[in-house]
């Protein structure tokens, strides 16, 4: 064995040792890290209050497979906690035993370092006596070994505090600038054979998911009840077949919206639809209106011809606003 071969073997040995050493280091349990910015908030800090919501927020320091998270609370904390929401960590189950809330992850997966986790639990009962307490939050792996841990700021439970609970109703105000109208039409005069009548509607609602506006008319439509009975045909069979104004001896409506209300696509561009007695949704909003009302102008249009029998026609238009759930 010459000198060069010996040197090569020595280098290989050193490399092998280095790799093995690295493997040993990787296999050894890492020292527990410190969770970043642990925050604990309570929805009500009155001593003994029930139905309280506790929110824990923190950031992982190390990558690890989190199987459970424990959060210490004062000794006399009670109630049956329910999971209100979770973020940054998978689905799981909550339990309160003694002075520790435990969130057990159903299917643990690796959670990278610097992941922001938030757990919100409701249904808790505050400790029975005044105290100021911190919460120690610990992330644990499947072998109940600590991955990261840290302590929150202090939360004070006091007897003399005033609890304020405000319930804001889901409220909707719907106004119409018209309660009824009459029109005089004459087929002999071009200027009065077609008449439009705008009905201005406005909606204000604080419903979180917005509202729906639907329209319907009476089952007979625009109807003459005296002999010979007659109903002026609708501009279309409904929203699905809304189109440009179809011509004489028709009755229908178009829609102009102001505000973030979405109208039915078929009514875009001044198209006209006929009312239906079953009712159809013509506009929706996906969120609350805020302080500024949404305004909706419905333009009712009637065009008569000599095919339209003379007489008095009546109809009832019902516009219904319903807040979304």
């Amino acid at each position: 064995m010459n000198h060069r071969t010996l040197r090569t073997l020595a280098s290989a040995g050193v490399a092998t040792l280095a790799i093995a050493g690295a493997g040993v280091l990787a296999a050894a349990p890492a020292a527990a890290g410190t969770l970043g910015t642990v925050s604990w908030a309570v929805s009500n800090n009155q001593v003994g209050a029930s139905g309280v919501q506790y929110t824990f927020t923190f950031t992982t320091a190390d990558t690890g497979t989190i199987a459970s998270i424990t959060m210490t609370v004062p000794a006399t904390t009670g109630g049956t906690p329910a999971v209100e929401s979770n973020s940054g960590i998978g689905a799981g189950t909550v339990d309160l035993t003694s002075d520790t809330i435990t969130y057990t992850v159903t299917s643990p997966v690796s959670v990278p370092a610097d992941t922001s986790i938030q757990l919100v639990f409701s249904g808790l009962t505050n400790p029975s006596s005044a105290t100021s307490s911190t919460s120690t939050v610990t992330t644990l792996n499947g072998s109940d070994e600590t991955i990261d841990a840290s302590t929150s700021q202090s939360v004070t439970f006091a007897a003399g505090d005033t609890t304020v609970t405000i319930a804001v109703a889901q409220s909707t105000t719907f106004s119409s600038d018209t309660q009824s109208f009459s029109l005089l039409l004459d087929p002999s005069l071009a200027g009065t054979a077609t008449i439009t009548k705008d009905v201005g509607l406005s909606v204000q609602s604080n419903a979180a998911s917005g509202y729906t506006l639907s329209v319907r008319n009476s089952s007979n439509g625009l109807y003459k009840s005296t002999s010979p009975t007659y109903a002026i045909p609708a501009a279309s069979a409904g929203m699905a077949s809304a189109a440009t104004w179809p011509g004489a001896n028709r009755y229908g409506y178009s829609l102009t919206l102001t505000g973030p209300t979405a109208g039915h696509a078929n009514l875009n561009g001044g198209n006209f639809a006929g009312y239906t007695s079953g009712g159809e949704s013509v506009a929706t909003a996906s969120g609350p209106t805020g302080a500024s009302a949404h305004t909706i102008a419905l333009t009712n249009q009637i065009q008569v011809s000599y095919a339209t029998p003379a007489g008095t026609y009546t109809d009832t238009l019902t516009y219904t606003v319903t807040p979304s759930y």
Partner: protein
Amino acid sequence: MGCGTRVVMAGRTAALVTALMAVLMAAWPALAMPANAAAGSVLGVSAPADPVTAVPGQPVATTVRLSNGGTEPLTVRLAVGTIKLGDRGEVTIDAVPDPVWAASTRIAEPTVTLAAQSWFENRVVIEVPAGLRPDTYFVGILVTPQVPASGSVTVVNEVGTYVGFDVPGPRQRSVRISELDLPGAVFGGTVPVRVRLVNDGPSFATAWGELHVSGPGRSRQVVRLPGRYRLAAGSYRDVTVSVTPGFGAGPVKVRATAFYNVSDQTVAETTATASVWVVSRAAGIAAAAAAATLLGGAILLAARRWRRRRRAMRAAGPIPPSGRPHAGRTAGN
């Protein structure tokens, strides 16, 4: 001239027709406008935002507040309608009495006359059947102004409202993500993501969720879906959010996770994954600059080669009529 005479005649006719129309309109102004229009109404209806807790076999009481923001008295009628909780949170309440709840719901004052600028709190009591299974229930109420029939066409501004109550206890909930919609490719870095949450269980459910966005490269972020989403059984709701992956270009993987309570203590999750090719604006500019540099270099190289070849051709002398200079040289060899 004949032509001019025709113009004058046409002008006279037009003037005559205009005058006649003016007389007609003046004599019968109602022709061009609504003959009669009654003033409108301003109706406000409020109900508790959250369901109240009910006990099977016992009545549950709640209130519906009515307000008249108009300048005239307003009479309204309240009736239980048939409620349908649809997709996207939309609610429809038909005027047909609800076959389930109409008989067991008592409205203290079914007809109320509200003075101008006044309000009234109407008590609503629902008899909850003894065997009702745990779930969240809604009773729809239509509040309909009683409009005097003074015109040919009557306009009614009706408000639909609903009161909810929850029967506590274990229930079967199931939510899934039926669609995770991403564009095929995005230039500029902001990716619109649409998640469709479907309640495919038999009970009312509330869901929340987040997006795990990874790539390009090793970038990774968690984006929470804004809010908690109430889903009636069989309905869906779309949630749209925009995410901005990190710098670079390449495939971005989006994993959507929705959570929901299978019981108060236990949360279940459902996931869906999709990918999109993203070129961030900076990466796009860098790539465009690199491409422009390469193109410029290629053009310069080609121009230099062309000049070199031209010099060689000049040095080789005039091109013989039979062909290219090197062909001549080959022939000479």
